[in-house]
Each structure stands twice: as C-alpha cells, then as structure tokens.
C-alpha cells in the first residue's frame, strides 16, 4: 500500500497496465516526453518507450480515430484528451464510430479504447477548461462512462476500463486530483494522504465498472453524487447533520439502478448533485430513474443541485459551483417537505 493522490493513482494504473499487457498504448497531446499537463503520464514514456507512450498532433478527432484503428488492430489504446472541453472536435469518432462499431458489425469488430479526460471546474479555467459533459456521453449508447471520486477508485476503475472490451470515457474531476475538496475554497487544501481512499495498492487491482458505492450509509435521505461532488455532499451532510445515505454513482453508464433505487426506496427522499449545468443534464436521468422506481416511496420531490445553466464563469467560479450551502439548502428542503 502506498499513499497516492489521484494523479499518481492514475499514473500507477497506466504503469501497471503497460507493464502487464503489451497491447496497452497511451497517446495524447503532451503526454509523452513531457508527462502530461497534469502529469498523469509522467515517467511512462521513459519507462515503457516511445512506441508505447505517444505524443500526438493537436487533433482530438485524429487521436480518437487513431485509437480506434489501433484498437481494431489488437491494441488497447488509452487516449488522453487534455481537457474534457476539447473532446468536441473528436466527438464524431466517439459517437458514430467507437460507440457503434460493435453493434453495426454484429460483434465482428470493436475497439477497446479508453478515453481519459479531466473535467470540472476549480482551477480558474473559465468556460473552456471547466466543463463536465458526462450527460452527452451517457446518452450515447455503446460506450461506458465513468467518473471516480478518489485515488483508490481512480486506479481500480482505470484498470477496469483498460481491461474492458467496451469503449470507456473516463472523466477525471481535476479539482480533486490533489485532495478531497469539500467545496470551501477558502479552507486550506486537504491532501489525499489524509483520506482513507488515498491508500492505494501499488500493483494490479480493479474496481468494477457499473457499480455505485454507498460512501455514507444513512436512513433519512439519499444523496446521489459523483466525482468532486461526493466530497462536497459529505461536507454539506455534516453541516446539516442529517442522516443521509450518500451514494457515489461512479459509473454514469451503465447505471447501477439497483443500488440507487434501493437506497431511495428506503429513505424516501433524494437529492441529486452534479457540477455540470442542470438543464437536460445527467441529473435529469437520475431524477427520472428514481421517480420511476421509487415513486410510491418518495416523500418529497427529488431535488437537483447543479451548476447553473450558464458557461463556467472565470471570476465567479465559487458562485457558480454547487457548493455545500446549496446542497444543504436542498437537503433541508427535502427533509422539511410535508
């Protein structure tokens, strides 16, 4: 066991997989010699060679297309898109190709590509370095969509993603690369070394895709969150002092409906939290799923706490961010309902 932050855990996952499986290759902008702008691939090219860890041209569509071709030719490519905001130039290759290849060829061709990409706000990146586009990918059948909330899960889920024979879009909430941010930017940063999930095995292990995790059991209300917002939700729950069951969704698609709905049917109340914009966001699916399965148990409308329906504004990052105060307000409101 070692103490790792999320970047180190991701690095370790790739290192382990490059070592175990000669089919694994890593590619992306600035990820080779330089080690990535967030250092997630640091040292990997030196250790595993220039033909396994490839710097690429600045062309997200080309990166994903090349990864598909490599995947079809028996490799297991892990492509980095430098920021999730820059995945759009490559989205045709994701939606029309990567996600559809197995289906359209009735299983004869497929490309086991993992696309890693940092998402979310928190680094004063403004609208083009802060987006959380998971809803868009969750709507696309034929890919899996994952977002870890801690180093342990990050490594285990990334290894699962690389080993998976389906394509995976792997979102990394960059705000918690270094520590479990609780939503208060004015408090001193907390490192992962102070968190249980900062303990990460050095070697190979997996965390299963498609399974949510109850990170705090409780009986009064269920909070559905993922990525950074898991920690923010924990902070809000501490403040409000309600006995909430907090679930880390972890996999956006396919969704672990059972774990979510079992909880909500038990608590009868639910708050859905994400950082992405609200309208037609992923939270809508969570609300719709919960109300479909738990309608007769619900004692209050399911609430959504999300980023506002605007681009991420540079100067107002913390006014935009759905912080503990907003989650707390929602928790109070669902608890007070009737």
């Amino acid at each position, binding site marked *: 066991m070692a103490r790792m932050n999320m970047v180190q855990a991701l690095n370790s996952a790739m290192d382990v997989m490059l070592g175990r499986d000669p089919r694994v290759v890593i590619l992306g902008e600035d990820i080779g010699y330089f080690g990535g702008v967030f250092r997630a691939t640091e040292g990997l090219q030196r250790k595993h060679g220039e033909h396994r860890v490839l710097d690429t041209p600045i*062309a997200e569509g*080309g990166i994903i297309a090349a990864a598909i*071709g490599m995947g079809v030719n028996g490799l297991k490519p892990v492509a980095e898109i430098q920021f999730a905001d820059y995945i759009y130039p490559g989205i045709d290759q994701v939606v029309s190709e990567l996600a559809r290849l197995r289906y359209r060829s009735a299983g004869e061709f497929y490309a086991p590509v993992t696309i890693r990409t940092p998402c979310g706000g928190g680094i004063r990146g403004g609208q083009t370095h802060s987006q959380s586009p998971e809803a868009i990918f969750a709507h696309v059948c034929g890919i899996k969509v994952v977002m870890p909330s801690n180093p342990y899960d990050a490594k285990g889920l990334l290894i699962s993603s690389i080993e998976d024979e389906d394509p995976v879009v792997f979102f990394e909430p960059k705000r918690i690369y270094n520590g479990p941010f609780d939503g208060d930017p004015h408090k001193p940063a907390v490192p992962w070394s102070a968190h249980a999930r900062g303990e990460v095995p050095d070697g190979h292990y997996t965390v299963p895709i498609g399974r949510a995790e109850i990170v705090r059991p409780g009986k009064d209300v269920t909070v559905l969150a993922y990525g950074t917002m898991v920690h923010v939700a924990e902070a809000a729950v501490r403040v409000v002092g309600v006995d909430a069951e907090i679930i880390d969704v972890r996999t956006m698609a396919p969704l672990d409906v059972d774990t979510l709905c079992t909880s909500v049917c038990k608590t009868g109340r639910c708050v859905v939290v994400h950082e992405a914009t609200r309208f037609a966001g992923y939270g809508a699916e969570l609300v719709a799923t919960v109300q479909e399965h738990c309608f007769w148990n619900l004692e209050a409308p399911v609430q959504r706490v999300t980023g506002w329906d605007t681009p991420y504004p540079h100067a107002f990052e913390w006014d935009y961010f759905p912080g503990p105060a907003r989650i707390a307000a929602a928790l109070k409101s669902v608890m007070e309902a009737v």
Partner: protein
Amino acid sequence: MTPRSRLHVPLPPARPGQEPDFSYVQISPAGAVNRPDVTAAARDIENLSVEMVRVLGDDHRAIGAWNPHLEPPELQVGLRHMLLTRLFDDRMQRIQRQGRISFYIKSTGEEAVAVAAGMALQPGDMLFPSYRQQGLHVVRGRNLVELMCQCLSNTHDMCKGRQMPIMYHWGKGNIFSISGNLATQFPQAVGWAMAAAIKGEDRLAASWIGEGSSAEADFHYAMTFAAVYQAPVILNLVNNQWAISTFQGFAGGEHRTFAQRGPGYGIPGIRVDGNDFLAVYAVTQWAAQRARQSRGPTLIEQVTYRAAAHSTSDDPSRYRPKDEWRAWPLGDPITRLKQHLITLGEWSEERHALLEKELEAHVTACWKEAESYGTLTGGPALDPLTMFEDVLKDMPANLVHQREEFRALRSAQADASGAMPPAAKEG
C-alpha cells in the same frame, strides 16, 4: 475605385441539357510518367501528383515504366472480378427497383479502383473502404450470397439487420465495417497502420474515400497522423468527379489536383488513371512497397467517373448532362482491360460473352440462395430480439429490461392479435 471582393462559386463544366465538357481533366499519355524508386523522397517526385500515371494506351497496349507486367491469367482474373462486380451491382439495383431491398449504391465505372488495388495488396493487409468499393469483397473471394443477405437484412445478414444495405464488413477477409458517416475510416486506417508499425508487422492498411468526403476533418487527421508517424498506409482518394450533386470543384478540385494535397503534408501524391486496371495495380504495388519498407504513407488520387447515380435515392439527371459518362475521356475500366487482353491475344469477344453469361448465372444463383434466407417481405426472418445485442459486449441492465418489455409487448400483441396489449411489466 475601391477594389471589392466577389464570392467565387465553382461552376461545373456542364449542366443538364448542356454538352459534357471534360477539358478540365489533365491527362498524360500512357507510359509518359516516370516511375521513381520507392525510396524516393516525396519532394523529388511531386510531378506524380500533377501528371497522371497511365499504362494502357489508346492502342490497348501496356507501355511505360509503370507497366506491372502481369501475366495474362492474372489479367483475366482482374477482368472477371470487375465484371462480376458490375453484374452484381446491376442486379442489386434492379432488385432495389423492384422494392426487394431498401437501398443500393453502385460502383459502375469505378471497378478498377477497388479490384486492381485489392489484387495488388496482400490478404493480410487491412482494407478500410467507403461504400463504393464492393470490388474489394469480390477480389478477396467473398461469397456474393453474404453481400446479398446483408442487403436483404435477412437471417444470414452479417450485420444482423442493423445496417442499411451495402454497409458490409468482413473480419476474416480483413475488410473493415463501412460507416454511414463519411471519411471516418481514413484516420482509423492510419491508426491501424500505426499499430502494425508499433508491433513491427509487415501488414499495411489501405483506405478509400471520395473526393467530396476529403473536405471532412478526417481527411486532414489521416494525412497529418500518417505524415507524422510515417504510417504504413495507402490513402486512396477516389475522385469520381461528383459528390451527390456537387462536382469536384466544391471539394477544392478547381485549382489543384487532389493528389497535390499529398506533397503539402510531405506525403507522396500520385495521380492515376483510375479506369486503367494496370495503372491502378502498379501505383498500389508501388505504394505498398513503400509502406512495407518503412517509407511511410502514399496518397493516391484515383481519377475516375461515377457513371451511375449516387445511389438508388438519387437522380443525376437533375444536376448533370444525362449522358455525361459517355464523354468521360478515360473510358470504361472493363472495356479497356478486355481490349488489352484481346490485343494480347489472350481474350476474345466470344470468351467475354461466355464469361458474362457464366457470371450472370452465378449472380442469379446467389440471389436465389440469398432469398431463401429471407427477404423484406417473406421467408425466414431475423429475430428482432437480437436488436438488443452487441450494444456493449455484455448486455447492460437497461437493455435487459427493455428487451423484456419488448418481448412482453410482442407476446401480448400476438395473443390479442389486433387488440391493444396490456401494460408492460415495469409499469
């Protein structure tokens, strides 16, 4: 007076009712273009992207450095493949007209582009075609029944009813799955070739796109990645002059040949007479040698003409002269190879007629067999429950539920036959 700019709008050489005019097509005489060594640097062979590699002369003889010196039996095989491709296309179009398949796309007039290239490559080479290279399947010996079953979406459909007609694939034959989205296969082929190079294999990838599709981003990605990593890939740009209703000027062909895009990226570009079986064979062979010797990618502009409608949904008489194809200066690839073989004394009109008959009968037999596996309107049918498979490797819970909902709905409908089904299970 202030100078003022004016928008230039490309104009095709002729519209319906006008005389066809192909004077814009620059044609080199057969045998006129030099054949550099495959070790030549891109910058030293730029002339290949402007001139036109041609082997078959007007006298039907093969001449010049690019003559691949194929033996007559090989030429006869090539002729057979092209003819079979054409007869297959003709038949499928007729079948579509009869409403027995929903859609079809012919490759008429462009058979050499697929057949000669396919023959010049190795079976292990991976092919990433567009929808107009059915000749590749023919070259690699695919049973036509399988292609027909795909078009029929029947019980033997390799796509299990999921794809429009002509969206074939063939794992064993190393032919990739055709996409409805134009050009996507081009950079995928480059990625496949990069993987071959990473693994140190001797296989290469070849891909085809239309000149119209070359305006898509994927063309640029393919060229950039191929150039940067010197990937062992052959990138064919099939300039058949038309992209549905727009002529090649709308893809940027007014000012330059498409082959000239190659040198812009540091990739050799070769412009070839795409209706000359021998020339297509020769340039493909040359490009393949380069690729296998780690000398990187080649862009080949296949100059040809889309003699047929874009697809069975199209009516070209709306936008080009009705008989424009007759005026096409590079002729017909089948006629030209046939005449070459006759000139060599290795073929005759009689043998040709016999071959045509044989192949027609073969196509008929294939169609009979294909139909026996089901048609749009009758015979055995694919189970619609299969539509929930292969979205992911293992069926996720939402699809398991949806399949059950669908199953319940169907049996309710079957039970009640006409009456409304009861509520689905998960109400």
